């Protein structure tokens, strides 16, 4: 993160988009929107627009990757070429490969992997528009897509970042704050187990700032978790209504 001297918080203590430091961006979630996928979810968080789709559990190709005692979760986090300012090549970047890994590892603790030995679950995440915090929003959507596919899980995984801008610890950084700010701490949480399944950090934070940031991010995760459950319920109720 480069530190340019631009004001990210105004005199009233509000951020560039009018939010208070501890406020989430507006979040819309929809579950089950892709007809072909076994499970899917769409999230808008600020200007982030992200689609997650799940296929499986199904036979794994190539077969030698299958495991005798558990299913194999594969995850691809991918950005559309038009999702960012400068057109991005569709070939996966090193960043996308790393994020695919940490997202997968943030979701694995939530899944009863041993229920489907010798199979695979493919999770595909497409960032259609990026606005900072895409890995967290991706996890939030992906966990719902897994649930929508009927994969048995301990809890939904909700994710949210906190960070530091203009010397203040704030929640849910948007793109400009992420780029100009001085630290970013993305966190994923299974609230029922108080289990942190993703934790990364870059920038510079004192111990006290870090503690504050983590706690703020966890709070954000819990709010998003509530929205996840709401989105699932909406789909479930709608389906029931349609069926009745």
């Amino acid at each position, binding site marked *: 993160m480069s530190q340019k001297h631009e004001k990210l918080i105004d005199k009233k203590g509000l951020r560039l988009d009018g939010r208070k430091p501890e406020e989430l961006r507006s979040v819309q979630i929809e579950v089950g929107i892709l007809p*072909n*996928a076994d499970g899917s979810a769409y999230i808008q968080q600020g*200007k982030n627009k992200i689609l997650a789709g799940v296929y499986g559990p199904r036979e794994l190709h190539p077969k030698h990757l299958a495991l005798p005692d558990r299913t194999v979760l594969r995850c691809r986090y991918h950005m559309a070429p*038009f999702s960012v300012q*400068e057109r991005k090549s569709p070939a996966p970047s090193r960043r996308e490969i790393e994020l695919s890994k940490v997202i997968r590892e943030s979701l694995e603790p939530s899944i009863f992997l041993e229920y489907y030995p010798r199979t695979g679950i*493919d999770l595909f995440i497409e960032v259609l528009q*990026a606005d900072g915090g895409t890995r967290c929003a991706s996890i939030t959507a992906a966990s719902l897509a897994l649930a929508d596919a009927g994969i048995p899980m301990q809890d939904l995984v909700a994710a949210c970042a906190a960070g530091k801008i203009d010397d203040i610890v704030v929640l849910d950084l948007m793109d400009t704050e992420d780029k100009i700010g001085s630290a970013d701490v993305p966190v994923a949480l299974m609230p029922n187990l108080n289990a942190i399944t993703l934790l990364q950090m870059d920038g510079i934070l004192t111990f006290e700032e870090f503690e504050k940031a983590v706690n703020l991010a966890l709070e954000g995760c819990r709010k998003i978790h509530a929205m996840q459950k709401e989105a699932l319920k909406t789909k479930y109720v709608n389906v029931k209504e349609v069926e009745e």
Partner: protein
Amino acid sequence: MSSIIVSLKRKQIAEFIEKEKRLDGRGLLDYREIVVEPGVIERAEGSARVLLGKTEVLAGVKIGIGKPYADTPNEGVLTVNAELVPLASPTFDPGPPKENAIELARVVDRGIRESKVLDFKKLCIIPSKKVLVVFVDVYVLNHDGNLIDASALAALAALLNTKMFNYEVEGDEVKIKSDLTQLPVRKHPIAVTFAKIGDKLIVDPWLEEEQIIDARLTVTTDDDGNICAMQKGGNGYFTPKEVLKAVKTAREKAKEIRKKLKW
């Protein structure tokens, strides 16, 4: 799909079509419902989402500055890319585009290029050195058949939705200005795809039909009813008579579809 299921399905669909009917209730020359939604990706210079029944395609336009091709030093560059995004179908794999995606991109590209949608000369900044590069990325989000027509329509709608930066040239430097201007689009080529089942032609085949058809033919026509691109696919054939009938029908269908581009 196993070959037994294919041949059963083939039989069933063919019997229906023999009676001028389709499994989903359409007539042979009816399109599924078409929805065009422009401007869905604010960060792109232009974008559009197209629904063709359950087939969903998103197209985004980005504009950059690059070098012209050596043989056209005074012309901008158009690059069309298509991704069969793996969440769109259990049959799509991640990885670099394979022949289906490449054919799709090139058919969409030719429809735009040959009908002269863009005036490439106007996209030249400094001859031989700097030109505008128009990237059209076609992103298939759900595959329920007839990706060509949906993709061509999404690409065209995204171009119609495109606002590009203005710029000034100072010597060899290009200064981007903050105001925007509409990308000039001169034509509205529409791709209409036919499938042949037995000796019948249908338009807009959906997935179930695509899996059993013999051959497809895409005819792209412009506002004046001229033909500007064609592409036969599949391991069957068409008679000359069928081809001419398809071209005539394509011009009629294109007129209908073109109306979806008014917003």
